[in-house]
């Protein structure tokens, strides 16, 4: 391996650290690399997508409530005339003739009363038409010609139950879910690993005490904890991390502690102890790195848990509030619309699932790369 890195030979003082090694091996893992690309693309879409998308994430299109995903533009050809007729009816106009000329519609309309020129607002406010104009009034103002351009829009992922573009919302949701998935997981893992390693390494009474604290926290009614946070601090994005972090590190701590019990009997740890390395040093240099295998695997499981937990927090009023959204919220909405509006479930699920898949393969790659015995 060194042969391919002549730098190492030229500068032998700079040894290859565990981390350099791990990085190289991770990059050699094709599944992991592909996953990193996928993850990067999703992240990029979440950050840039809402700016690039032609729709605002909170724009309500009242004429497009729950329209299916489609590559073709809306309105579909067969929607134009009925929609126009409906609008004319609301404006109390009768259509004598209706003509579609490319992207424009022209209609001759009559009314029993005088036609109010404001009626074009009915046409304009519709999401289907734009640039409406009315002219060629007859003498008694009861006959006129109404023109309007068809306003084409694309909804590649369909729309939700308020007629908002699901694609933009899925991108936007990605920001929330990726942030919470990443940050809360890091919080949970940091606390969990340090706590678990300390507990397991120190052992004896301290271990017992520390683990009983975990038991207590594990048993407390989480929902009340959340409700309490909402009541006292109102809705707050930071609190969400606290709430999630506060529960999710518990499992981590247990697993790391278990691993530590085995590791601390290993020869190299005992050697370090014999050499008088302080506890903190042993935990940091020997215990924690060696627990990383299961930790990484567990992390890839924690991310989906956290992302979905967020939707439950939103239910209790702690998570994101409308019009912001998250994948968890979108998917739980989608699950309720399974029959009838399946696209509301499918597209956010694709994003969540591919993110998690990518994370899993990266996790496996990391685990393999970090494995100290696998060199």
């Amino acid at each position, binding site marked *: 391996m060194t042969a391919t890195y002549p730098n190492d030979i030229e500068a032998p003082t700079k040894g290859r650290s565990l981390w350099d090694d791990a990085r190289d091996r991770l990059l050699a893992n094709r599944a992991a690399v592909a996953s990193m690309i996928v993850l990067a693309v999703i992240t990029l879409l979440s950050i840039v997508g809402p700016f690039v998308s032609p729709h605002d994430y909170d724009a309500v299109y009242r004429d497009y409530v729950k329209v299916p995903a489609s590559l073709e533009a809306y309105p579909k050809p067969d929607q134009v005339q009925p929609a126009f007729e409906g609008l004319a009816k609301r404006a109390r106009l009768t259509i004598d003739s209706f003509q579609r000329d490319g992207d424009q519609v022209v209609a001759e309309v009559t009314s029993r009363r005088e036609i109010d020129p404001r009626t074009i607002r009915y046409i304009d406010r519709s999401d289907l038409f734009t640039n409406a104009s009315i002219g060629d009034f007859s003498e008694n103002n009861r006959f006129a010609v109404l023109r309007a351009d068809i306003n084409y829009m694309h909804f590649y992922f369909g729309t939700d139950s*308020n007629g908002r573009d699901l694609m933009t919302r899925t991108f936007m949701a990605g920001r929330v879910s990726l942030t919470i998935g990443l940050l809360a997981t890091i919080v949970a893992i940091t606390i969990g690993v340090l706590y678990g390693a300390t507990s397991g390494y120190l052992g004896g009474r301290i271990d017992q005490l520390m683990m009983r604290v975990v038991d207590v926290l594990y048993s407390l009614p989480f929902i009340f904890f959340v409700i309490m946070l909402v009541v006292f601090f109102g809705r707050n994005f930071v609190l969400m991390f606290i709430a999630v972090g506060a529960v999710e590190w518990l499992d981590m701590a247990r697993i790391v502690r278990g691993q530590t019990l085995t590791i601390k009997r290993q020869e190299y740890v005992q050697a370090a102890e014999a050499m008088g390395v302080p506890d903190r040093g042993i935990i940091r240099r020997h215990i924690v790195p060696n627990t990383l295998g299961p930790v990484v695997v567990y992390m890839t499981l924690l991310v989906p848990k956290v992302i979905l937990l967020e939707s439950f927090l939103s*239910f209790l009023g702690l998570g994101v*509030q409308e019009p912001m959204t998250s994948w968890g919220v979108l998917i739980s909405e989608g699950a309720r619309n399974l029959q009838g509006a399946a696209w509301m479930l499918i597209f956010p699920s694709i994003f969540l699932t591919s993110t998690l898949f990518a994370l899993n393969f990266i996790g496996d790659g990391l685990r393999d790369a970090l494995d100290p015995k696998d060199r």
Partner: protein
Amino acid sequence: MFKSLRVGALAAALMAATSLTAVAEVVLHRDNGGEPETLDPHKTSVTTENNILKDMYEGLIGLSADGKLIPGMAESWTISDDGTVYTFNLRDAKWSNGDPVVAGDFEYSLRRIMDPATGAKYATVLYPIKNAEKVNKSELPKEELGVKAIDDKTLEITLESPTPYFLGLLQHQTGLPVHPATVEEHGTDFVRPENVVTNGAFIITEFVPNSHVTVVRNENYYGNDDVQIDKVVFHNIEDRGAAVRRFEAGEFHIVDEVPTEQMAHVKSTMADQLLVAPYLGTYYYALNHESEKLKDPGVRQALSMAIDREFLADEIFAGTMSVAYSIVPPGIDNYGEPAYAEYKGQSMIDREDEARELLEAAGYNESNPLKLELRYNTNENHKNAAIAIADMWKPLGVEVSMLNTDVKTHYAHLRDQGDFDVARAGWIGDYSDPQNFLFLVESDNTGFNYARYNNPEYDALMDKAAATLDLEKRADIMKQAEVLFMRDLPFIPILHYSSKKLVSDKISGYEPNLRDEHQSRWITVSE
């Protein structure tokens, strides 16, 4: 694994065999929409309990399949000229253990529900009975209650003041009787299937919490010969999507409430089995009259005007609600046409222009927006409605921030006079009378008057209506009150509820009605 699979197959075969032998038994599987909290008719408070209780017990007044009041345990009755004394003649009926139903049972039952020791949540419904409120508040002994068994067949009920909807109250689930001897013997455990004695068409055999309640035919019921069903299983499930799927799979005959999300699917595949009917309830937004921003009546009117109710009803609620321009739902008894808002027939464009002018006059526009906080209890429909309404208000220069909490937190906040601008709420009538809607914002109604509306003129009208015997005059007075309501807008009425049921084509005798009550005794299941 394989072994247990075989055992399972065997069990299934056995079950199939037994169901063949019992082919004569007619079973109705009803989705009950949720868990009953109790099956004690005096502790009851919700519709999930009402559905079951009305099958098990029968009060003085019954309800026909189409929701009309009919004689129940009382065969006939007379009302004194001043409208305060009701004398009921009981029919020959029996409890499920063979005991006759006597007037004393009703005397006992009505005393029991007013007894503070019972802890009845809905005792208030029967407060029009003389001394009821005082008994319930431990100010008088329960013997002082205005209910007297003259003899076994005659019951006399005296009221505090004339109450034109009193028979409707007796039909309410709180008016159901209990079997005194059983209650005395078993105390609160009288509700247990092994103890209970009922006087209705069915009797309970099983209550599995979070699962189902099973009731079977009561052979001693006076109308037993006309009851077509042998057994009713009430499935107490909350998950609406699951209820529809179980209906599709043939596991349920009736779905209590079709969720809005599933309407499109239901309409496209089972339209012939879908029953949508008006229901006695109003969906509204309470406006805090103590909030500085909402002090101006023009602002409140503008907010109401700009709501496109047709869009909400048709698109957001997929046709499961109807538009509301009055707090009292149309079709209610003792009323006539409600006092609709003036803009009911106006075009949306005119309404928006007018609303914009009103807000402009109050100093709000898009550059100086009116910032409102909208609270709602977490629920998919409430959320969608809130988003849509916020979107309708936005062009007028109203900026809405939303806050959702779980239902207990939401209502506790409103009731405890918490700070808010706009809050979602809904009201389902307990009885078919406008009073049951208009009393919500009486200034002394601290529990329901979330708006903290305080208008002595309104209160005076409501008092006057309560003292008026003549139904038409009473209706007029209440209508005047509703006009004030629609002028001052303590609540913005947005939609009226509808009942939305799926009823299998195997079912007959099921008639949609305003009360949305459907006793199993009227229903038939064909194979």
